[in-house]
């Protein structure tokens, strides 16, 4: 098994052009470091907390309404597993069906190849711009940046995309609602700074803001050019592409232009048309808490007289086969990108999507990204720890991915990869020292006395933000309460000396 090639589309200079032409992605820091900024942004935390609470409530209601929800989840899980274990034959079947229906299939082993294919296809249309509805896959391979570097203007097709474009260096915080972390006041400010004609006194109610956005996107997706979309599912048996979205931007991209380019991961396949009866029930309720997604579109190849004259499907590996090779980890490839696990995750609810890097955010990102990129890098090794293992994500996942289980499995891989290093990692050194200290009563008590004194010196207002030395790593992502002035042992001894009366008068008390 070869690793997912040198190009990870993450970090400067790796598969990206030199900095002279366009923004260069920052090197991905550890999750905890990246999360600091988000954690100190009160507005972001408030907006996210409000939005995820709304989504949670809607989803609970929508799934409780079906008395066969658990049966659907079980079927969804099984169909996805069956697909993954036969992925090669399904992909070949898909290719035959798409080609037979007048489409063209391209294979991309990594992000760089996918970017190359799409850039070439857009150039071939002779257009200097392309319309796109952003997908998780496009973000993963940093498609927009690549096209811009190639001199092609990328125009977002939806409202959220417009907002994100106006936000400048802003990054989407949620796969389905990219502007989720912005409140109406912020969106108003972004839209009001607009072209002549935008009212300066734009009110900040959602309807008025949507109206302003509509006016800006008025020209829509032009009929002659090219457009790019992602996919929710690819049906192997029939070669059908399924797009399912909360707004209609993808539908416009899929119908109006001359050339349509769909970039999808190889794991997005489902075997048969009939299997959609399961996923078209699971996805809307899990994703947006509604009975259906407002805009679902399906098409097979090209249809004369209706929609694009040319259809290209780019099938992307980019590390997915590495995930597939891990018998336990491959369960993560069942993911249908509904984002339910994000909205219930207490960690995501506070940090937003940014700290997870360019891959998927939230719990599913924390298991997929390290598997694709490896656990050797600081970012990869930190992601499996960006979780409290509370299990909420596993409960809501419509295809029953046991995310906590995968996180623990990956933590094991992180420890394993560290163990092989010549210099023992801090955790290991610490554990060894601890074992030595705790192996002897006097050593332990002396250490406790010293530790308590030091810890109280470090604390501010009863909390320690950063422990010194090797322990500092542990406090990267958490504050520690300062220890009490007196250890339990010292307290016990002093009360024994003072006569052993009063409350809790003896070891048996309170049992």
């Amino acid at each position, binding site marked *: 098994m070869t690793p997912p090639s040198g190009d990870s589309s993450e970090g400067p200079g790796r598969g990206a052009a030199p900095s002279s032409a366009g923004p260069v992605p920052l090197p991905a820091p550890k999750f905890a470091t990246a999360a600091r900024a988000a954690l100190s942004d009160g507005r972001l935390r408030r907006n996210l907390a409000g939005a995820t609470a709304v989504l949670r409530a809607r989803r609970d209601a929508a799934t409780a309404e079906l008395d066969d929800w658990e049966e659907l989840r079980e079927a969804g899980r099984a169909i996805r597993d069956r697909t993954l274990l036969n992925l*090669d034959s399904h992909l070949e079947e898909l290719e035959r069906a798409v080609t037979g229906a007048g489409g063209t299939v391209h294979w991309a082993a990594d992000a760089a190849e996918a970017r190359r294919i799409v850039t070439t296809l857009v150039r071939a249309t002779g257009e200097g711009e392309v319309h796109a509805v952003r997908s998780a896959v496009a973000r993963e391979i940093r498609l927009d940046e690549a096209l811009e570097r190639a001199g092609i203007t990328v125009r977002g097709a939806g409202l959220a995309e417009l907002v994100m474009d106006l936000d400048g260096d802003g990054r989407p915080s949620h796969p389905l*609602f990219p502007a989720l972390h912005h409140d109406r006041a912020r969106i108003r400010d972004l839209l009001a700074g607009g072209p002549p004609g935008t009212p300066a006194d734009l009110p900040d109610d959602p309807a008025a803001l*949507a109206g302003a956005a509509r006016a800006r996107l008025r020209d829509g997706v032009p009929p002659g050019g090219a457009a790019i979309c992602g996919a929710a599912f690819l049906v192997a048996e029939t070669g059908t592409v399924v797009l399912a979205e909360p707004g209609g931007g993808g539908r416009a991209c899929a119908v109006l232009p001359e050339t349509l380019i769909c970039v999808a991961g190889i794991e997005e396949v489902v075997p048969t048309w009939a299997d959609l009866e*399961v996923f078209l029930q699971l996805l809307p309720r899990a994703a947006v808490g509604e*009975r259906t997604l407002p805009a*679902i579109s399906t098409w097979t190849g090209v*249809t004369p007289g*209706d929609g694009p004259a040319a259809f290209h499907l780019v099938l992307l590996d980019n590390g997915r086969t590495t995930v597939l090779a891990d*018998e336990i980890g491959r369960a993560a490839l069942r993911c249908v990108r509904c984002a339910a696990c994000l909205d219930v995750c207490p960690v995501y609810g506070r940090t937003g999507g940014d700290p997870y890097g360019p891959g998927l955010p939230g719990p599913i990102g924390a298991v997929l990204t390290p598997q694709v990129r490896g656990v050797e890098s600081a970012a990869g090794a930190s992601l499996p720890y960006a979780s409290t293992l509370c299990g909420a994500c596993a409960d809501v996942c419509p295809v029953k991915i046991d995310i906590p289980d995968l996180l623990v499995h990956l933590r094991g891989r992180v420890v394993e990869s560290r163990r092989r290093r010549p210099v023992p990692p801090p955790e290991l050194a610490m554990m060894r020292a601890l074992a030595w200290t705790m192996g002897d009563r006097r050593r332990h008590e002396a250490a406790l006395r010293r530790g308590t004194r030091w810890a109280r010196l470090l604390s501010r207002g009863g909390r320690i933000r950063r422990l010194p030395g090797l322990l500092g790593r542990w406090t990267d992502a958490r504050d520690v309460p300062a220890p009490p002035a007196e250890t339990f042992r010292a307290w016990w001894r002093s009360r024994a000396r003072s006569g052993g009366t009063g409350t809790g008068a003896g070891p048996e008390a309170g049992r």
Partner: protein
Amino acid sequence: MSSRETVLGRVREALGPARGTRVPVPRDYRRRLSGRQAPTRADVVALFSERVAEHRASVRHVSADELATAIAAALWGREAGRIIAPADLPFGWLAGLEGVAAQADLPAADRVQAVRGLDGLDGVVTGCAVAIAQTGTIVLDGGRAQGRRALTLVPPYHLCVVHADQIVGTVPEAVARLDPARPLTWIGGPSTTTDIELERTEGVYGPAVLDVFVVED
């Protein structure tokens, strides 16, 4: 080696001996509405009307005789002065129009013109292929009375006629009826966006207003 071979080779290598394992798929979920949800055909139709209305569409029940008058009244009420319809729309549907310029969608040689020609129209009238009661969804498949997809994407108003016998109870029933080879448009109400604080407002693409006429014959 081509990337196709590379990727397929990696898949095979990654799966190893597990490759080709048949995982049994339990299909114990419902294919039809339970008797409690919709005991009769009339209940299925009523459930559809209720659910599609929850998507902010307006729903009316009309008899086949009233349809032409009802369509004319609706277009007039929506101030839709210039509309388009698929060329194979049943002849009678637009028979009652007064003061509305209706044009049939005819194949155009030039693609760009075919789409540009839809700009400035006020609305579109179509039928549908299937409608789903449980989810309040209407599906168009480009078949009779439905036309190409751009018709129901560009004009700001869509009047959709649903025959009662086109309404099924559940998603599995709809999937079984539909032909994947056709381009399908699943409509869940008028165009909306929830991008601003998750509040549902008029969307950026697609008809902002959807009128659904359920014809009981």
